[in-house]
């Protein structure tokens, strides 16, 4: 096995070890927060690819998470029973795209099948990412940051202000996402262990994909773009196209995370699209090391898990703000980087501060 997959195997081993530990200590309830963390981590590794390797900041990535989550939630809860007679609906029904089920209170529902909804959500995300990414990625510096921030705010305002998306209450009673063999991605406690493995399995797949991407021609091109865009252009690398594709890829990761977490939680609310969430994701990528996928993943695991358990109490947002400040002031390349110990030694021995990276 190639050396680059060694960490993947180690990580997979860690995941299994955690689950077994919870099994033997009878503390399987931890799996809930760990599963939710997995989905957030999926978004974060995609974002790390964008910020670290393609060098593009995005302060609005929670927007893509929300697009995926809300679209799938809406399609799988919107009752189409009243439209049964219409031609379009019966066509969809015959194509197997709709599913009837009983709602929790005894009525009967006709909704879009979760798989179909997932596909629709991802397609819409890709379209939006291309439409928005094209002009946005032509910007630089502050303008780029603000454009992405603005995008995130627009999505937040749209989901907050739209009646049929639940306005401030969001969408509830979202059904589970069926997998094979009777399993589904849902919050039922009986399905805790399978859900845990499904979530982290997906993250590991995502990591493998990204690692392969980094080591491929595309990845090398991205690193060169990040380092010196004009020079990269001079050797024939279509920088704009690669950046855009990376943007869309990270958007798809975010959207997929949104879709599956919404099915797991059984609902979604506007808070998932808020600016604070986007800032939180950037903070985690920053602290893990901008161009360090494993760093971002491990920081995501730790920080999201703690946050979801309420460890930070009323200081939840504060923690991420302080992390941002401290990392940017003292360790702009992140915490878990190669020269961490030698840098610390240098710092404490009082010699001049090292050069700052991009």
């Amino acid at each position, binding site marked *: 096995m190639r050396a680059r997959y060694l960490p993947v195997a180690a990580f997979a081993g860690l995941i299994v070890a955690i689950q077994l530990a919870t099994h033997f200590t009878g503390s399987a309830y931890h799996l809930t927060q760990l599963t939710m963390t997995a989905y957030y981590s999926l978004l974060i590794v995609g974002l790390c690819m964008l910020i670290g390797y393609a060098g593009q*900041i995005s*302060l609005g990535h929670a927007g893509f998470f929300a697009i995926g989550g809300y679209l799938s939630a809406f399609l799988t809860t919107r009752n189409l029973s009243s439209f049964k007679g219409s031609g379009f609906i019966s066509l969809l029904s015959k194509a197997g795209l709709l599913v009837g089920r009983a709602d929790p209170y005894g009525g009967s529902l006709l909704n879009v099948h979760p798989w179909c909804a997932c596909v629709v959500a991802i397609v819409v995300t890709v379209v939006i990412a291309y439409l928005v990414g094209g*002009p*946005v990625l*032509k*910007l*630089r*510096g*502050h*303008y780029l*940051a*603000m*454009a992405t*921030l*603005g*995008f995130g*705010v*627009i999505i937040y*305002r*749209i989901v*907050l*202000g739209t009646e049929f998306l639940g*306005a401030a209450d969001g969408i509830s009673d979202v059904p589970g996402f069926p997998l094979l063999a009777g399993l589904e991605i849902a919050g039922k406690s009986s399905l805790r262990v399978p859900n845990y493995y499904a979530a982290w399995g997906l993250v590991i797949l995502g990591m493998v994909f990204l690692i392969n991407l980094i080591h491929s021609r595309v990845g090398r091109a991205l690193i060169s773009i990040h380092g010196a865009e004009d020079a990269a252009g001079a050797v024939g690398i279509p920088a704009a196209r690669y950046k855009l594709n990376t943007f869309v890829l990270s958007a798809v990761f975010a959207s997929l995370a949104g879709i599956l977490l919404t099915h797991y939680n059984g609902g979604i609310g506007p808070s998932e699209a808020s*600016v*604070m969430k986007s*800032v939180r994701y*950037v*903070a985690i990528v*920053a602290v893990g090391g901008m161009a360090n996928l494993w760093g971002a993943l491990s920081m995501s695991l730790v920080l999201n898990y703690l946050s979801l358990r309420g460890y930070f109490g009323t*200081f939840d*947002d*504060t923690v*991420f*703000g*302080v*992390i*941002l*400040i401290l990392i*940017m*002031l003292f360790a*702009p390349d992140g915490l878990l980087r190669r020269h961490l110990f030698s840098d610390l030694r240098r710092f404490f021995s009082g010699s001049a*501060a090292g050069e*700052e*990276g*991009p």
Partner: protein
Amino acid sequence: MLPIFYGKDTDLEFFFQYLVAGITYGTIYAIVAIGFNIIYNATGIINFAQGEFVMLGGMTAVTLSQYMPLPMAILGAVAVTTVIGAVIEILFIRWLRGPSVLRMIIITIGVSILVREIALHIWGESVRALPYFTGDSVTSIKMGSVYVSPQVLWVVGVSAVAVAAMIAFFNYTMLGRQMRACAANRDAARLCGVNAGNMVTLSFMLSAAIGALGGAVVCPITYVHYDSGTPLAIKGFTVAILGGLGNSAAAVGAGMILGILESFSIWVLPATYKEVVSITILLLILFIRPSGIFGSAEASRLKEF
């Protein structure tokens, strides 16, 4: 979009009432934008914590007004916020060497979160308001068929005075000219004996002062709350970019335009989409003409810190 198309709602008086509402919002946004521009001009940094200065101005003024008469409370609030602005600069910005734009943006976002959370833990979550400077919450002056609260006149008046003072400061005082020199070419300014580091601190202080003044004077109309800084910051930099980053006079004009557009937008869209309107305008400007309506392409080349 003009009211002409809507039946009996076409009375001209409502048109002007909307206009006044738009000017009210616009002035609030312009004040925040001017704060952005001052710091941007001196340092090339966009200070995401600008909205928090406005919030701090209002909160501190309310607290101080319990112990001293209103005018002194406002001056006190401005003074305190100015000091906080200086502290922020010294603690977080001053000793960075050649940081990237990305780093600066992230630091100021972190600072804005920190300031907001500290405000929450000091003042709690309840809302506060200052008393109206003249009259109370129902007095209004009838100008033609339009009703205007005297506080709105205060907001417009104080903003006008503040902008005039800024212009005078930058053009006619030694310190102001030094700041402009620093903004134009830092090394050359240093060679002439200007202390660039202090200029940066001064810019933060000025920005904080004007933000706090705006916050205090707007506080009676709306209310202030530990969370009120962030939405203002977003609107503020929309206006700053609209007018052209760094151009404070244009920020006033851009503020009016945005405020009026938002105000009239409720004829065609539900009121909850007002912010969508302003952000869409921001994105359009960024895509089409990032130098802003009044800015020049040359000025839009980003400054170095």
